[in-house]
């Protein structure tokens, strides 16, 4: 087993990883920017070092000071969390060079999945369903026009190096297509240094359903069921749940098998997530992308399976064989996660960094809080706005929702505005309660206007 791990991250995920390490008896080294001197992860780790100024680029994204601390504190491994360096193949390569274990898949797997058209092609060859579209990068306008005519409009143009909602454009006819290709290529060149774009059929109404996979270094791959992340605002997930209310047991099984195939295709190792577009009308699903890291929403999977995903990551990185096989996995009840952000839902989700005065997280049966906040904590304006992930578990979807409503009602955060009122309204919304919604939910229903909750 690994003995000492550097956590190359901040916030709740750094705290989450430190917790798992403590429970495994592994020493922890935290790093922090000047803006995070008082952060909780700094206080909880065995050692902590300031590695640079507030700017992520000069601190959490800066290889040199991180590797310096890793070397000087003699850690065996680096856990990148999510975001920052989590899917950075160069950083993973640097770790390998420095003989430090990067807790994540191989550089090969990161690269294969990190470039969208490569991933798409890899999946196609592995027999994982992909959205109809181009095979690889679009070579010419003529090729794009012919292809779009064949699969039918609307189509979507995606930069192969894109991500997080950037470098994407929809075209509804040939004219738009030509324009979009040019603009997206230029944008992608500028933003990602790679102008390559590809083309897919645009599926407008879909659920975002993803499968958690777990693989060791000896070829064993299992999946831990799905998560439904269809409640999104501008491609940012806000509420996640498992099981998905959108899919049935047949789809669940097929999707799970497809995800395992996807992971096997890149010799995946560790925890990863295969995201799918689920088209309810056709009852069909397509590979969207694979995230080669732990996800923000991993706790809901932990709640229903009882499996500690961070510990599993660490065990796999310690070259242990998976102790569980597919048949051992039991899905128990329902779990929901609400991301409580420092944003004002009454003012277009404007970020509200500042000092948290009163902070009292909810407790009791079936309630889990993953957070790095504390009374008096000052949320810095430089990073993401998440204050806490509130996760509930119940026997049924209804119980998980009722428990979430109860927990939200006793989550006392004063000093900054939060998205708690937003979540409270979603959880009262008939469409959400029905389970019959997709990624357009927040577009179609203006939650903050529709309902009135005091």
């Amino acid at each position, binding site marked *: 087993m690994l003995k000492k791990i550097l956590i190359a991250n901040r916030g709740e995920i750094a705290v989450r990883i430190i917790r798992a390490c403590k429970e495994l008896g592994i020493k922890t080294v935290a790093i922090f920017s*000047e803006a995070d001197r008082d952060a909780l992860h700094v206080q909880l780790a065995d050692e902590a*070092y*300031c*590695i*640079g100024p507030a700017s992520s680029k000069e601190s959490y994204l800066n290889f040199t*000071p991180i590797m*310096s601390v890793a070397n*000087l*504190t003699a850690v065996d491994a680096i856990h990148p969390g999510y975001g920052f360096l989590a899917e950075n193949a160069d950083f993973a390569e640097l770790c390998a060079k420095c003989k430090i274990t990067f807790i994540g898949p191989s550089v090969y797997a990161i690269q294969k999945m990190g470039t969208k058209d490569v991933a798409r092609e890899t999946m196609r060859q592995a027999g994982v369903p992909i959205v109809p579209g181009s095979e690889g990068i679009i070579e010419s306008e003529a090729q794009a026009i012919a292809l779009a005519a064949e699969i039918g409009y609307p189509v979507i143009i995606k930069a192969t190096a894109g991500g997080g909602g950037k470098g994407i454009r929809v075209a509804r006819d040939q004219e738009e297509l030509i324009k979009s290709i040019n603009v997206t290529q230029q944008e992608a060149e500028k933003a990602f240094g790679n102008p390559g774009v590809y083309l897919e059929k645009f599926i407008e109404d879909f659920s975002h359903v993803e499968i958690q996979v777990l693989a060791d270094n000896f070829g064993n791959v299992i999946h831990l069921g799905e998560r439904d992340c269809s409640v999104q605002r501008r491609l940012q997930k806000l509420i996640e749940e498992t099981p998905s209310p959108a899919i049935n047991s047949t789809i669940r099984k097929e999707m799970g098998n497809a995800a395992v195939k996807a992971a096997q295709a890149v010799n995946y190792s560790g925890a990863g997530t295969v995201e799918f577009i689920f088209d309810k009308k056709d009852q069909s699903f397509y590979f969207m992308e694979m995230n080669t890291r732990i996800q923000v929403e991993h706790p809901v999977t932990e709640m229903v399976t009882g499996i500690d995903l961070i510990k599993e990551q660490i065990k796999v990185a310690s070259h242990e064989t998976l102790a569980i096989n597919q048949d051992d996995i039991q899905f128990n009840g329902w779990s929901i996660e609400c991301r409580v952000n420092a944003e004002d839902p009454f003012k277009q989700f404007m970020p509200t960094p500042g000092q948290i005065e009163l902070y009292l997280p909810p407790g009791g049966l079936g309630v889990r809080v993953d957070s790095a906040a504390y009374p008096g904590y000052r949320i810095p304006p430089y990073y993401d706005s998440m204050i806490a992930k509130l996760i509930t578990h119940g026997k049924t979807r209804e119980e998980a929702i009722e428990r979430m409503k109860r927990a939200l009602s006793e989550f006392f955060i004063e000093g900054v505005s939060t998205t708690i009122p937003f979540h409270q309204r979603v959880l009262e919304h008939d469409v959400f309660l029905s389970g019959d919604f997709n990624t357009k939910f927040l577009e179609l229903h203006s939650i903050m206007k529709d309902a009135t909750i005091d």
Partner: protein
Amino acid sequence: MIKISEIKELIKVLDASSVDELVYEFENEKLKLKKNVPTFESVPVQTAQPIVTPAIELADDKQPVTVEKVQPDYDYEITSPMVGTFYLSSSPETGPYVKIGDQVTKKSVVCIVEAMKLFNEIEAEVDGEVVTILAENGELVEYGQPLFGIKQK
């Protein structure tokens, strides 16, 4: 937020003390307590002493506020521009770049911080005298950690 019970306590403390007025403001909260004293004519004799404002330093989240006057004998700190290992000399064989009492100029190299096998020479950046050395030879220093105390010229 201040609680009633706390205000009551403060009133008691104030009653028992010679303090006459308390004003406290924080964000949109304001508390003012003032004793009913000035209903008599007073002839101030003199208030010769200057008002001393104590320096308040919040040492740690978990410790009470300590009110103390720190008078460091230096007025500039050379801080580490990176994480790395701090070395006073370029090799074990040679002497240190600087010692306490040495005069330095802006461009004087005062130490080395090694990061990723790169030896970064750190310059003083001010003219002055080395008053104290704040890190130990061979120590892992953080970004921004004070290394030397300099009394500027």
